[in-house]
């Protein structure tokens, strides 16, 4: 009986396990391995067997201690992930709740509007913000403020460190990320029986009370999912940041997160140091795992998982 169950489970789980091993476990193992080699410039034949021990980690640690700007990269990672995460999750939640209380047609149009950043090609979307936040008078924001007489001189928004640079990268990425939470939370809200809301309305509850007492408690699972997913996603995201830094819109040190540092070190420079980048990627993965576990612990994930009654 047990064997039969194991066989059935293996049959159904095999595709998923296979995919996870192929696309997650193997790359992770490879990344860890490469971090112990002197791999550079894609020269697999030459460097893949050249094991250098903890040399790349030593270099990272040395940089952390002595580089006057490397700490800015780590600090930027913490601030960027933290604040953007709050915007993404709470923004998504706010949008979902707002559209929940609207009529369907305007609600759909409103949701679609927030999806636009995600649908736009990254380069086009980043270019829009490049010109919007440009630190000279050609920047849309500066030009508007100057025309309104609010400022006399253009403000180099992305070059004011640290908060100017942080604000730009958080704003641009926050706008992209907020739609993810909105979709998940909207879907969650649509699963909640309408009778509960109607009954509360009949009893005279306001939209705020309905949200707080009925809707939010029923969305805890979704909240946990969006929070964890967005956290891991933000920790590893870099395409928008890459362009904003590459185009000199934001300060290089305070516009670079660890994920972007990994990308630039591995593929973005004259000499591409994939061993060092892999070591930084391993550190990033460890941070991701620790952060993910903390999130699950804080939101009491284990309490939400209950053994099903009876046999499956």
């Amino acid at each position, binding site marked *: 009986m047990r064997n039969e169950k194991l066989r059935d489970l293996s049959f159904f789980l095999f595709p998923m396990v296979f995919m996870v091993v192929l696309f997650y476990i193997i790359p992770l193992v490879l990344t860890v391995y490469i971090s112990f080699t002197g791999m550079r410039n894609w020269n697999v034949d030459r460097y893949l067997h050249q094991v250098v021990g903890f040399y790349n980690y*030593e270099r990272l640690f040395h940089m952390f*201690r002595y580089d006057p*700007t490397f700490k800015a990269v780590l600090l930027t990672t913490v601030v960027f992930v933290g604040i953007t995460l709050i915007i993404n999750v709470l923004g998504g939640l706010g949008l979902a709740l707002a559209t929940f209380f609207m009529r369907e047609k305007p609600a759909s149009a409103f949701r679609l509007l927030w999806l636009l950043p995600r649908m736009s090609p990254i380069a086009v979307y980043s270019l829009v913000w490049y010109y919007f936040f440009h630190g000279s008078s*050609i920047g849309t924001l500066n030009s508007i403020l100057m025309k309104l007489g609010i400022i006399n001189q253009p403000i180099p928004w992305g070059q004011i460190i640290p908060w100017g640079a942080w604000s730009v990268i958080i704003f641009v990425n926050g706008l992209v990320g907020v739609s993810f939470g909105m979709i998940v939370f909207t879907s969650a809200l649509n699963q909640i029986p309408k009778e509960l809301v109607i009954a509360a309305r009949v009893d005279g509850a306001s939209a705020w009370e309905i949200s707080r007492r009925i809707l939010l408690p029923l969305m805890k699972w979704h909240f946990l999912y969006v929070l964890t997913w967005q956290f891991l996603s933000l920790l590893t995201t870099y395409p928008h940041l890459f362009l904003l830094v590459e185009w000199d819109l934001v300060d290089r040190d305070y516009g670079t997160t660890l994920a972007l540092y990994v990308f630039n070190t591995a593929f973005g420079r004259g*000499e591409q140091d994939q061993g060092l980048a892999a070591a930084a990627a391993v550190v990033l993965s460890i941070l991701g795992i620790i952060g993910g576990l903390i999130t699950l612990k804080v939101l009491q994930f284990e309490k939400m998982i209950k053994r099903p009654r009876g046999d499956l």
Partner: protein
Amino acid sequence: MKWKATLLMAILVFAVVASGCIGGTQETKTETTKVTLTGDFNKDVIEIGKILEKNGITEVKFSAWGSGDPNSVMRVYGIVDTAYKINRIWKQNGINVKITVTTKYDQSFKDQYQEFLSKQPLGQAGDFFVNSYAFLPTLAEEGYILDITNYAKAYQNVINDFYPNLLEAAKYKGKLYGLPQDTEARPLYVRKDVAECAGLDVTTLPEKVKAGEFTWSDVYYWAKKAKEKGCAEWGLIHRKGSAHPDLIQFIFAFNGKLYDPKTGKLVLDVPAVYKWLYVEWKFAQDGLLPKDIMSWDWAKQIHPTIVEGKTLFDIGGTWYWTEWQTKQYYHGRPLTPEEVKKWFAYTLFPAGEKGDKPVTLSQPFIWMINSKAGQLNPKYEELKDVYHALAFLMIIKASDPEINAIHSVISAHLPVRKEAAKLIKDENWLNKLKNLDLDLAPEVKDNIKDIVEKTVNPINAQFLADVSYMLEYTHLAPAHPKYPALADIFKEAVDKVLRGEMTPEEAVKFIEEKIKADKELADNVEIVGEIPKDWKFPQG
């Protein structure tokens, strides 16, 4: 049933093995697979053609990768034209082999370099690769490009015609890894009408700069005067982004160095770097140079500011000359050749201070050959040497003075060969180029027709002839795999100094700390000298 299936499988396996063995017994007769170059191009090409024909090869496929501004397409069509000419020689000699070339031309040379780097190990990169010499050390170090030192010995007469300092840019650790394709100088442009308003005589300026009499203190003096008199909004405009290569001219102008050939290490020349940063800081602090220039937009700010006469000086490149004639920087339209000539004077990059020498800086592009060149052709392993020798002959032919001169005229780059430099001064030849009455592949003529129409004129040819002397003063950034990392740090320091976030002293300290923080960079960079005490700018 089971035994039937087993039998079937056994028969199948046997059939596969047997067919492999039968195929393996078919002997492919391989003829001579080595070639010795003689230095006589036609003879060598015929010899290679015959070897290929005897080995049953009728078609050789090559791909040429090039990149840069839209006018620099000869970087790939030079190879296409070469194939056309070799095919013609083979046909005339009854050799039934043909070269076909596919081309790939991208805008960004850095992006194409990164693509080459990632695809070369997979055997998917171009057979010919023309790119900045700055990447050559890394490519040579990794074994991604062909060492052509031995092939070149037979063609010493051609090699000798290249300017020697440019040839050095094609070498790494004493070995030749390519041939120079083009180069440029980085003049200091002076806006004539603004200079007149400020009272600066530009007619004698190039000579004064050449003699080292007009230094950066004078640039500061006149920039300030032009601004104070209301002749221009700015005194000086320079590039944004990477400090390589325009701005590092300051290091050479202050008699500094970036590389120590004795140790093979990069050098942080503290006094020269300090003086460079001080000049930048002083210009920005006094409002003569925009504090945020490093994040200016090329098309909307930098070029319009220059061509609209809002600055007295600009540190630019020779290619600006035709770029201003093809891009709409001047109130939404390009400048005419006459306007460019009327408005702009140009000199060498002045000496840092009295006693120093004026300089310019070049970033030659190099024809490089993939170390796996020809690998997609039949019998690659046996005929590797023949394919490589053929590829070498193709870059020799693509370096013909005529091809080089065409590229120079239409893209405002400087010729890399003395013979090509003579051609661009020849009016008859220019007329022939204007009418495309030259021996070129029809495909090449079709593709460069429009560019030739817009750019071939006596004014542009004269400009190239006028600035060619600058190559005698040129410097090259070091050919060192770690140089791009150092240039990145310079860029960051310049930006911080311009914005006033750091004083020149703090910026030098910042550069030192950044170098020391990267263990590998620290092993490859010597820090020499100290910040000079009581150094004043401007002087005199």
